[in-house]
Structures are given as structure tokens and as C-alpha cells.
């Protein structure tokens, strides 16, 4: 964690952490070790309307065997972050800076070819909408086999055996029959399983799931989340789950990162963030969500206003126009100075100008009783 504390010091972090990180695959010995380390990642897009600051300086680590949940509303930059890690933005008009350390390699400065060889093998992604992420003209078997053969020089026969094995493992009944089926012949849940099989066929050590269950019904969502958890246990991989649903995060994540307007406003373990959330935006998210296990309360407590445009991010704290406590600090810094992430508990960070005592007071006296 030591680099995390010093992350404010921008890209001064010297790269790979513990020296022991060999090339050996996932094993119990490596569990808990930092596998992905993102430092001050910025992804901006030049558009006719101006510069879109989709991701504006975020840093985090993901350890082997742990799941990081990235939470935020649409337009908060969570998907752009994941595409940035995967190196899927380079050919566009994106301006990328910062560092992405995958195991021992820094990806932002690496050649496109190098990143392509990592993609799929060391890191893989599950997309939100499997129907548009799968190719409609090819059978699912062909698509999974291709993903395997790109990284492994094996015969079609061996690759097919591997694909069948994967289909079986993600719980697709009769893999031999379904192997030659086309994506449109599968139901939503089954398609998502195919996507997961394709992502895992090369035993990636990092799996990024971008809204993996948003398009699915709750009963199917439960099946898919179960599957991701089981497979993570089996492979010991590091997982990032991107979602807007705090319920999903509570179910699956060990660590949590809350994003707002391209920035990280709060980060900590799931227990820390849910038990003692620090940032007013996190409070807002918790207050906005109706909960199934609660009696009908009077009203939800929504966040007022709408998320800002990423071209015109408010100065100072990006959340201040919507924050009910923006006027609490006496000076004008909420409107002029961008708050840096500060540690408020072991490994629990927040970017807020409110003084610690003040924040604790507001949470325990004003916000928590109403939730």
C-alpha cells in the first residue's frame, strides 16, 4: 500500500512492486500481490465542442485474488478507464497519460504490438452487451477458438478441446452442441456466459467486467455473479467489476472505488465504504437507491441536479454544485481548489474538503439516520 499513500506525488512511483513477481502463472503463493497498478491515469478526448476529460487522474491497485468494484453513474469515466487499461483507446483521438503497470510491464508507453500480445492473454474483458460484442457471422465455438489460437500456436483440434472445456466450465449445457451455435441462438444469460468463456480461455490474470449483468434479469444476474466469483476462486485472478449498481458491488467486490466526473472521490475496502462512507456523493448514491430489505420510507434522498458535462467540469470539487454540504467549509476552496485524496482510515481515502470531524458528524447525525 505504500505507493498508494504517495500517489499524490504523481508519476514518481518507480513501477513494479515486490521483486518476487516472476512470470509464473497464478498460484496461491502470489495471491494478494498487486497485479495491476494504475497511476494518475488521464484520458482526454479532443472533440469539436472542446476537450472531454473522461478520466482525470485516477490511481488504484488490484491484487491477485481480489475484486475491485468501480462505481459511478454514466459519464463518470468508469468504462473509459477500463478501455484505457486494455489499451483500446490508443488509435482514437484519445490523449492518454499516466502509467498502467500490468505485472512488470508499463502499458501506456509500450508499443501497440506489445499491448496486443498482453490483451486476451494476461488481461481480458467482459463487455456489457454480449450481443454486440460477439460477432454475429461466426459460431461461438469459432470465436472462442480464435481467441485461444491467437495466443497459443496449437492445432485447431486442441483449441477446440480447450473451447469445449471452457464452455462446460461456465455452465453451458451440452457444450458440444452449442459450440457450433451462433450468438443469436443463445439467450442473454447464455451469451454472457459465452463472453466469459472467451475472456477466460487464455487464463488471464486480470479480468475486467464492464457492467457484466446490467442487461440481464435479476435471477440470471445472480447466476452470472456466482459464476464470476467461482471462476475467480479457481483461477486466483484479479478482477475489476464496473457497475452503477451498489448492490452488485456489495455482493462481489472486496475493494471499492467511487468515481465522479472522471475522478476518484472515495476508495477503500467494501466494508469501509459501506459502513462509514466518507464522501457526500457516496452518501447520495446510498440515499438514492431504494432497498428491497427496507420498509417503504417516506422519500428517497436523491442527489440534486444532474451529473456535469465532462467538457465543463466544475472548478474546485467537481461535486460542489450538487453537494448539500458545499457551504460548510468556511473558505472558498470547495469552489476553487480541487480536493486531493486524503487517507481517513487505513487504506480508506476520500477527496473532500470537509474536515474529518465535520464529515463524521454529518454522516452520523444527519445522513445515516435517514438511510
Amino acid at each position, binding site marked *: 500500500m505504500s505507493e498508494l499513500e504517495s500517489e499524490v506525488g504523481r508519476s514518481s512511483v518507480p513501477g513494479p512492486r515486490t521483486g518476487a513477481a516472476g512470470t509464473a502463472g497464478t498460484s496461491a503463493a502470489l495471491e494478494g500481490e498487486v497485479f495491476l497498478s494504475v497511476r494518475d491515469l488521464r484520458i482526454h478526448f479532443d472533440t469539436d465542442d472542446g476537450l472531454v476529460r473522461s478520466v482525470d487522474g485516477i490511481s488504484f491497485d488490484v491484487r491477485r485474488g481480489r475484486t475491485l468494484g468501480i462505481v459511478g453513474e*454514466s459519464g463518470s469515466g468508469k468504462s473509459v478507464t477500463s478501455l484505457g487499461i486494455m489499451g483500446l483507446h490508443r488509435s482514437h483521438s484519445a490523449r492518454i497519460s499516466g502509467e498502467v503497470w500490468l505485472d512488470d510491464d508499463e502499458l501506456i508507453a509500450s508499443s501497440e504490438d506489445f499491448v496486443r500480445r498482453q490483451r486476451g492473454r494476461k488481461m481480458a474483458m467482459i463487455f456489457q452487451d454480449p450481443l454486440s460484442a460477439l460477432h454475429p457471422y461466426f459460431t461461438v465455438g469459432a470465436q472462442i477458438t480464435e481467441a485461444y489460437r491467437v495466443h497459443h500456436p496449437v492445432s485447431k483440434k486442441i483449441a477446440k478441446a480447450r473451447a469445449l472445456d471452457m464452455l462446460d466450465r461456465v455452465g453451458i449445457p451440452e457444450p458440444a*452442441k452449442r459450440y457450433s451455435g451462433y450468438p443469436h441462438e443463445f439467450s442473454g444469460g447464455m451469451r454472457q456466459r459465452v463472453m466469459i468463456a472467451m475472456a477466460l480461455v487464455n487464463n488471464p490474470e486480470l479480468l475486467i467486467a464492464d457492467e457484466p449483468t446490467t442487461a440481464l*434479469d435479476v435471477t440470471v444476474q445472480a447466476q452470472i455473479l456466482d459464476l464470476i466469483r467461482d471462476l475467480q476462486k479457481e483461477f486466483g485472478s484479479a478482477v475489476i467489476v464496473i457497475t452503477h*449498481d451498489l448492490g452488485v458491488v456489495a*455482493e462481489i467486490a472486496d475493494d471499492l472505488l467511487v468515481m465522479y466526473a472522471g475522478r476518484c472521490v472515495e476508495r477503500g475496502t467494501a466494508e469501509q465504504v459501506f459502513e462509514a462512507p466518507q464522501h457526500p456523493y457516496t452518501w447520495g448514491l446510498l440515499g438514492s437507491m431504494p432497498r428491497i*430489505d427496507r420498509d417503504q420510507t417516506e*422519500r428517497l434522498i*436523491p*442527489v440534486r441536479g*444532474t451529473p456535469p458535462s465532462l467538457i465543463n467540469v466544475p472548478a474546485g470539487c467537481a461535486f460542489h454544485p450538487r453537494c448539500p454540504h458545499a457551504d460548510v467549509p468556511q473558505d472558498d476552496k470547495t469552489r476553487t481548489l480541487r480536493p486531493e485524496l486524503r487517507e481517513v482510515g487505513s487504506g480508506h481515502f476520500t477527496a473532500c474538503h470537509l474536515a474529518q470531524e465535520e464529515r463524521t458528524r454529518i454522516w452520523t447525525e444527519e445522513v445515516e439516520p435517514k438511510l
Partner: protein
Amino acid sequence: MSLLELNDVKVHFPIKRGVFFDRTVGHVYAVDGISLKVEAGETYGLVGESGCGKTTLGRAVLRLVDITSGEVVLDGTDLASLPDKEMRSMRRRLQMVFQDPLGSLNPRQNIESILSEGMAAHGIGANQEERREKIRAILAKVGLPSNALSRYPHEFSGGQRQRIGIARALVLEPDVIICDEPVSALDVSIQAQVVNLLDELQEELGLTYVVIAHDLAVVRHISDVIGVMYLGSLVEEAPSDSLYAEPKHPYTKALMSAVPIPDPVVEEARERILLTGDLPSPANPPSGCRFHTRCPWAQPKCKEERPQLREVGDGHRVACHFVEDIESGVLQIGTDRAAVVPAARTEDAGIEAAAAKAAEAAEAAEDKAVEEKSASVEATDSEAAETDSTESAKDSTAQGA
């Protein structure tokens, strides 16, 4: 008398086949015999997974799809048998708020034009000036600035667009508003704003809502009574709090237990009932209880006989033969399960048969897709559901194997 009453409403879509002759080869049983009552001033929530027919039911109430049989009684008038012309004027009293706010607002009309069109059609307000005044008042109620009048839908954010959709329903002073997934396209923080707005409007104007949604937490929050749908029929209906406190139907239990709760501590302790497989095809629904193919408590009787909704105390209606036994613990998960899905359980013959059946269903779905391109959304839905059947048939066979 209830404000809105549905009696055994059925909506079946024919599946046609053939190039020259439109042979009807079967039906998609999208809504298959639903009876319910909505009291004035309350909110009735309809929940269910995609493909269960909840949207079709909502549209059937407004007669936006043809009702195959049954009655939709609004304030003493049966809408199902009303001539088209009279139905059109009845629609003033029944309005709908759609899921996708951008898709349901004409991009070339400004807000004033969108909102006054319905008023003019129903003869509300003597002239445009009068209508404009009324629209201004409604816009203020839904929290939009009055300068919105001359703006176009693309100039608004998602939450604001949904407010426009709500205003469009409100200007006609309807008795019942049917909200089809009113917040599912919105961000979490905006969702809460719209949910609160619906609550406030109901209090202020005494509106009656039918809310159709897949998000159980949202439905619980705004509904007084909730009906749970599965494959075209109601499986359970109860007052909101009692449904969530004590779900009785196995499907409701599974549905509730699948909703994740934003609190890791509660989440850890939560008991879950995982359903296997997908929704069967509404074109070829299972015999007997529609849920027996996925029900962990299924008994031989469930395959034979279709359970009717029956009262089991304090306004709780359930369609299950064995509610009491499940409740008392006499029936445990898995008891006699083998007897229920024998085809899937035993040998290869069963698998072959299931696969053949599934292939047939898929084929039918494809044919239909070609022919009914112009058909309504429901048709596409059901097609997707049919493909699902391929899965579920195979799913169950695999469990057996």
C-alpha cells in the same frame, strides 16, 4: 368498486408460417388469463423478468395491442369491447409513461407542441393560449423551467425528458397512469428524483398508477400492491410490505433472493435460492404450473394441474398448489424432484427429444421473424423468448445428465 379491473385478460399473438398462405401454426401466450384490481389513488406494481408479459399487459389495458379475450373495466366501462372511436376518447383517462424518454418524444416537435397535441385532440382548453397556461402550470409541477416550452427534446437530460413524458400524461388529467419502466433508463441519482416526483404527484393530485418494472427495489418503494408475473400469468399478489416480508410463491422467493443489497454485511448473511435455466418460451409454455420446470419444490401434481390464484390470508393471493406445505416445511427443496422432470433426468432419448423440440421452436421463431418484421415489440420479445426455450430445454437436460 375498483377504478380499474382486469378480468381474465388474454393477449395471444399468432405465429404465422408459409410464404403464400398465412397459416397460423401456434400462439405466443404473452398474457394468459390475468385478473386484478387497481383501487383509486393507489399504486399497483407489476414485476417480472423480461418476457413475462408485463409490458404487453400494460399496453393491453390501453388497447395498444389487441386483447384476445377478457375484460378491462375502467370505472364501469369495459374497454375491451369499446368501438375504436370511443376508445380513443377514453384514452384521455388512461395515460402511459414510456421507458425510453428520448424514443417516445418526437425530436422535431418542441415541448409545447408535444404537450398541447394531446390536449387539442381531446378538446382540452379553448385555444392555444389557454393550453399554454395549463402546460406552464404542469411543467412547474414536474420541476421543469417554463422556458422549456420552446425547446426540443434533445436539449434536455435523461431525467428531464422523463419529466416531460410525465407532464405529457398529466396535462390530460388522466385517472390512471401506466408507467412502463419509468426509471430504468436513468442514472441512480436521477432515478430517485423521478421516483420522488411520482410520489409527490400522487399525493397532490390523487393519481392512480400502474407501475411496470423489473427492478424490485423500485417497485417496492412506490407500490401499495404488487403483482408478480411469470410467463403471462400472475403467480402472486400482495400488499407491498407483506410481499417482501413473506414472499410465498417459490418464484417470488427466488426473485427476491436474487436482488443484491447494497450492504456487504446483509449481503453475506443473505440466503439465496438460485434458479437454474431460463424462462421457457411463451409460445410453448410448460403444462400445469408454468413454473414447475424451474421450481425447486416441484411435485408431480404441478405438472398436471395449473394452479389458480387463491387467497391465503391478508390480501395475499398465490398461485401455487403447495404454499402451505412449503411454508410449514413439510415440503423441502428437492422432494420428489425426479418425478417431475423425468424426460430430462433419465437417458439420451430424453435429451434427443428435448433438443429436437428446441430446434423446432427456434425454427418457428426465425420464420416468424421474417414474416412479422413490422409486428409490434412484443413479437420480437417473444421471438427472443423462444430462442430462450432452446436454452432452457437443454439446460434441464444437462442437469439430468
